[in-house]
Structure formats: C-alpha cells, structure tokens
C-alpha cells in the first residue's frame, strides 16, 4: 500500500500550518465569517445546522489500522465518539469546534490523513473500486492510478477554482463497483488489443438536480497519457464551462449541451496542443507508485478452506453472513469480507470510535493491514484468509458490525439529511431506520434478495437516489417533509436513472410504500429475478398499483 514519503508528508504539514494560520486570523477577528468561508470550505470545514462539520478524505477508500485508530481518536476526542462514512470515501464529523480544527488536522496529518479538497470547486477526493488489489477481474490495481491522480490534483494551481466541484472515479474491472457512470470523470482501465493498458474515459455523468450518465468521450487512452488528457478535459471545462448559473455549472451540463462528440473534439484539440511530456508522469514515477501497491504477504493456500466450510454447516447465521458479506478473492484461499455499517435501526454509514478500533484490530490481524471504505457507505476487509472468516465474523458481531445484509434491502444508502445538513429539505436517516426495522429479520431480507434503496434529503442527491432500485428523495411541501419515490435506478454496469413512481408521500407513508413495493415484487417475480429485473420486465404499473391503490 502506498505510504506517504517525506514529500507527501511535508505537503500535509504545510497545508495544516496554512490552515492553522487562517483559523487564527478568523478567531482573532482579523477576517469576517464571510471572508473565512471560502478558506475553510477549501479544507472540508462546513458550517451546518448545529455545528461545524469536518469532511476528512480517505483517498480511494484505503484505510490502515493506524488511520482507523486516528479517526477513532479524533472522533472520540473532538466529536461525539462516532463518524459518518459517506458514499465518496470520506468520513464526516458533525460536531466540530472551529478552535479544534487545526489540532485535528495536525493529528490526521501524522498518519497521512487530511481534509484537502473535500469541498470547494476543485478536484475532489478520489474514489476507486474498493476491491482494487483483490478483484479477480481487474487488469491492474486501480489504486495506482487513483494515487497518480491524487498527487496531480492536489493543490493544482490551474484547477482550484473550477465552475463547480469535480469528482473522478477509477476502476480497473469490467464490473463497476465505483459508480463511474455518475461521475464527472469515470475511468475504466482495460488492456487494449496490443496488451497495452488504456483507459476508457467517461465524462459528464452526475446526479443532483439533473442526473446524467456519463458518455464515453474516448475509448482508448494510453494509460501513460492519463494526466495530460485529464488536464485537457479540466482546461476545457475551466475555460468554457458555465459559470452563470450554479445549477448548470457542472461539467455534465456542458457535455450535454455541446454533445459528447463535440466536447470530445474540444478536448482532443486542447490535448493536441499540450506538451504531454511535461504533464505525464515519467515511467520511473509510475513504477514507484505501482511498486507501493504490489501485493505483499499473501500465503499459498488451498482454494477451499475446511474450517470455513465446517463453520457454514455448523451455524446457519454464519452461513448467511458468508452468503452476503464474503466475496471471492483473486488469491486462492482468501476472501473479501464486507463490514456492514447498516445494522437496522442505526444510522447508515455511522461508525463509533470503538467500532473503528475493532476494525483496525481485525485489519491488522487478519487482512494484511488493510481496510476499505466502499461506495455503499460500508467498510471492507479486503484480504482475509477463508480459514479466518469465522473468527472475523465473531469479532464483528461482538462489535455490533456483523449484519449479514450487504446488497440487501436493509443495506440502505442515506445522506445525513435534515438531521444535520443545512441544505436538506427533509430527513433521510429516520426514513432509512423505519424501512430497515421492517426488514430487520435477516431471513426476510434474504428472501427479498438484492435490492438497493438510496435516500437523499434534497435534490443535491448525496444519497444517490437517482440510481437506487428504489430511490427516495425528500422534498419540502409547504413546510412538511414529503418523499418522491423512483424505481429502476442502478449505478453499476447497467446504470440507469430511476423513473418516478407517482405523487410524493408523507414521511409516515414511506416505509409502508416500500413494503408495498416489495409485496408487488414478491408477487410478480419470476424465478431468479432480482427486484430490478422484475421492474425492468414488468414496468412501473404493478408497483404503482401496489402503492397508490388505496388512493383511487
């Protein structure tokens, strides 16, 4: 795994010192809150409904025991003993005091963590396939390229005042676990006909008020030219993207208005004029970063583990955990183990300091010192021996983290909503809790099968409701919280934006509506169909009927 060298560490130290000086100017009254706002926003510090929120970056979701323990320490010392993992490889602390922020950043920097570019109209924290380095279908480790981009994007002098924020996701697999079609830039690494690594480049995806799936603007970009090509895309956007209207300022609007082909031509023209050698990393630097991610410490094991199989036979609860939370690893005898942050009744994505420490211990002992943060607001132990999975499960259960529900109806994505966020129109967390409680019986959730529910408390779509099989959007109707439901969204390879089910529902009707939708699915489904498959085959009608029948 990439460890920050002296240069990387000094970048963090210099940034922390700069922010400390800026905070001192604010606390001393030398600058107003209005002047301070753009400064703190460049460092992930938001003023929310009740307090400051600090958004800490976890670049491409990669966590070590030391980083987890530091996050736990910071959450316990400066917040209320828990943090909120987001869909974008960030940890949010929602009860921060301004005077503590510089100390927090110093402590985070000591383990290579920071809040650089977690807000502001700049290139935001990078995300990547959480299975990178463990996925059987990857052509390379996506983290190598995410780290390449991270360094290039950090304090980029030209691209720190873009028309709007800018998000990049990287995968090196055909199976998309990083939602690359809903990103400003989505990158998929492949090997081309000649065996060379090349990126498929998607630009202009995004959610929010107007959701778009990003079109491909270049099928094959030689991987070594990644940075010069990114510069060309960002320069085209920085110069010609809309700045007249906040709601039309994302690159997705520019791409949609120009058309993908015309946008691609504009990028190619800029790229042709670019001195690529000045921008692209030399091979030695690529090799240095790549070497840092080289697999280390894997043992040679038989593909089948007698202990794992015996545990499944002996304990149906473990067998259920194995069915939903344990995934095949590219190295024989190893598995990926999902750690659910979605225990029914709890806040999706929340993790206490004690739980972070428990995961740190498990990562250290059983997962070659690694953990990951996934797009679904869960954590992942990427390199666990099958032999050890039963023990890991017992430890997770003891920490309240053993919910066997990955990809099931209770594995709900939800933004912080009106409980915390100044932008929200409605609460998201209590809706998620209501729904999850109704399906808290693991046997019921398992019978319903794969079904992702995504909830956003406002149109900004942090909960990615557009791409949920069931999407729920909170809106304000004359001062009351209402919820619009969409069906059929997906963020994977078959990405799609959900279709509206019908009139918005009041808060107390949402969980029942979900039950009705599930009821319709169970009646309609044909053998082997997931919820989304039934929807795609049968359309909206049976679902609409199930939810709104009483209204007729």
């Amino acid at each position, binding site marked *: 795994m990439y*460890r920050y*060298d*002296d*240069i*990387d560490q*000094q*970048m963090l130290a*210099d*940034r922390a*010192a*700069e922010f400390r000086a800026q905070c001192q100017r604010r606390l001393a009254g030398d600058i107003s809150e209005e*002047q301070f*706002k*753009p*400064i703190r*926003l*460049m460092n992930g510090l*938001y003023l929310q409904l009740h307090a400051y929120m600090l*958004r800490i970056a976890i670049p491409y979701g990669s966590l070590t025991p030391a980083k987890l323990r530091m996050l736990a320490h910071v959450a316990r010392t400066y917040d209320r003993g828990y943090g909120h993992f*987001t*869909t*974008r490889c*960030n940890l949010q602390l929602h009860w921060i005091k301004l005077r503590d922020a510089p100390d927090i950043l110093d402590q985070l920097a000591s383990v290579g963590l920071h809040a650089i570019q977690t*807000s*502001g*109209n700049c290139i935001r924290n990078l995300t990547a396939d959480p299975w990178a380095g463990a996925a059987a279908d990857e052509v390379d480790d996506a983290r190598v390229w995410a780290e390449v981009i991270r*360094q*290039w994007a*950090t*304090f*980029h*002098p*030209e*691209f*720190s*005042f*873009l028309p709007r*924020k800018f998000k990049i996701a990287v995968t090196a697999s055909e199976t998309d676990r990083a939602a690359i079609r809903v990103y400003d830039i989505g990158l998929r690494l492949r090997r081309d006909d000649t065996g060379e690594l090349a990126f498929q480049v998607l630009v202009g995806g995004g959610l929010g008020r107007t959701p778009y799936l990003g079109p491909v603007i270049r099928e094959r970009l030689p991987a070594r030219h990644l940075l010069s090509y990114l510069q060309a895309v960002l*320069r085209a956007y*920085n*110069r010609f993207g809309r*700045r007249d209207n*906040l709601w039309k300022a994302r690159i997705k609007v520019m791409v949609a208005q120009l058309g993908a082909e015309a946008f691609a031509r504009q990028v190619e023209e800029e790229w042709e*004029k670019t*001195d690529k050698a*000045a*921008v692209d*990393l*030399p091979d*030695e*630097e690529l090799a*240095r970063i790549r*070497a*840092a991610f*080289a697999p280390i410490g894997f043992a040679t094991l038989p593909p089948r583990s007698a202990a794992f199989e015996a545990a499944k036979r002996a304990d149906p609860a473990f067998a259920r955990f194995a069915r939903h939370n344990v995934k095949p690893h590219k190295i024989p005898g190893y598995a990926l183990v999902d750690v659910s942050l979605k225990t029914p009744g709890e806040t999706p994505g929340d993790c206490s300091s004690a739980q972070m420490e428990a995961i740190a211990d498990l990562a250290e002992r059983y997962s070659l010192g690694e953990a990951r943060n996934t797009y679904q607001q869960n954590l992942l132990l990427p390199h666990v021996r099958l032999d050890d999975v039963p023990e890991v499960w017992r430890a997770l259960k003891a920490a309240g983290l053993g919910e066997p529900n990955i990809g099931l109806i209770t594995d709900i994505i939800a*933004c912080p909503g009106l409980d915390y966020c*100044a*932008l929200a129109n409605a609460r998201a967390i209590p809706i998620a809790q209501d729904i999850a409680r109704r399906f808290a019986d693991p046997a019921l959730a398992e019978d319903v099968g794969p079904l992702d529910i995504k909830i956003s408390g406002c149109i*900004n779509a*942090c909960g990615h409701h557009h791409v949920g099989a069931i999407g729920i959007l909170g809106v304000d109707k004359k001062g009351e919280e209402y919820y619009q439901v969409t069906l059929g969204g997906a963020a994977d390879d078959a990405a799609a934006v959900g279709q509206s089910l019908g009139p918005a529902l009041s808060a107390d009707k949402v969980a029942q509506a979900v039950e009705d939708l599930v009821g319709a699915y169970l009646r309609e489904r044909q053998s082997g169909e997931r919820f989304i498959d039934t929807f795609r085959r049968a359309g909206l009608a049976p679902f609409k009927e199930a939810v709104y029948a009483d209204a007729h």
Partner: protein
Amino acid sequence: MPTLIRWREARAVLEEDPFTAVGDADPMPPGDVIISVKRFQAEGEQLLGEGRAVGVRVEAEESVEALAYDLPRLSLVALAFPKFKDGRAFSAARILRERLGFGGEVRAVGDVLLEQAKFMIRCGFDAFEPADGTGPAEWTAAGRRFRHVYQRASDGREPAFVERARAIVLYTGDHAEPARGRRRKTPEEAREGALAHGFGPAHRFPMALGGADAQGPI
C-alpha cells in the same frame, strides 16, 4: 503613483506602478497605459507608435489566444478576476506563458485575494493588485509556504516526481530510503532548493519593458 505587488526572485515586493488603467470611455492620459482588447485593436498602433508601453486587459470571457499576434508588442497582459471564485484567468495565464511564450508581465486584476497567491504565482502571474488590502509580507509567506509541488506549471518549479527521481529514492513498498551515497535533503534545503532552482528562469520571465456555503453534495 499607485503601487502593486510584484513577484521577483521568490518574494513579493511593493513597487510603483508606471501604468494607468484606462477604460474604454476615458480620455487617453499620457504615459504607459492598460487598455481593453477592443481599444487596443482600435488605438494600439498609434499608442505604440508614440513610444508608450502598452498593456492589454483581458476579461475572463475573452480568449488570450486572440492576442497571440500582438503579444511581442505588449508590455503586460492584465487578466481579470471578476470574482474570487472565477478561475478562468488561471488557464489564461498558463496558456500565455507555456503555449504563447509571453515573457512580459502577467498581472492579476479584479477580485484578487491573498488566498489565490500560491496558485497565481504557479500559473505565471508576476504582478498583483490585491483587493483585500494584503501586502508583500503576506504574499511572500503565501507564495513560499509549500515546500513541494506535485505538478509542473508556469513557474518552473520542480515537481515532486522530479525531486524523487533526482534523489534516486529506492521505494520498497514500505520504506523510502535514499540510495547509498546519497543524502536526503533537509526540509530547509528542499525549500531553498526548490525556490532557488525553480522561480523565474530568465528565458521565461524576462522583465517587462519598464519593468450554499457553496457546500453541498459530498
């Protein structure tokens, strides 16, 4: 005479500004002037013929490429920041320096704040009219705060990947160790080295003639 901040040899200095900014409707004063692209197109020949130094102010929505033909005759290009958040001039400055080879003064005008200093200097700006009352001491500190940079830009600073290649750091995956016989630079040496080595190479910076919360989705 009004003053402005100039970036010279890795520090900000306060200097007198010999130029007068002249609006399109203003009467033409004597001496060196900064005028709009439109006015330059109409009156540039005459002004240059009078032996004046002439600068052109380029608005954020205007293209610097349109000036390419005239650049050798211009003493300075002033790039406008209509708002602090409007970053188009950063691209314009890099294109002027790196693509069009402009060696005259590139001046930041408009909503120019200290917080942009480190980015502006990197993009090739070398003169600033701060709108926030900040002075040379603050601009020097802001321009020198970061010991390293990750990418090449217009300031000639050596990016991290070049520093690393020079130090021949052997990377084993867990430990970064200097190769035998080489010593890692101390932070102080690194800072001085970067600043001394990088800023203002003569071929690129000959002195000019005369001188929601926007917060939101994660």
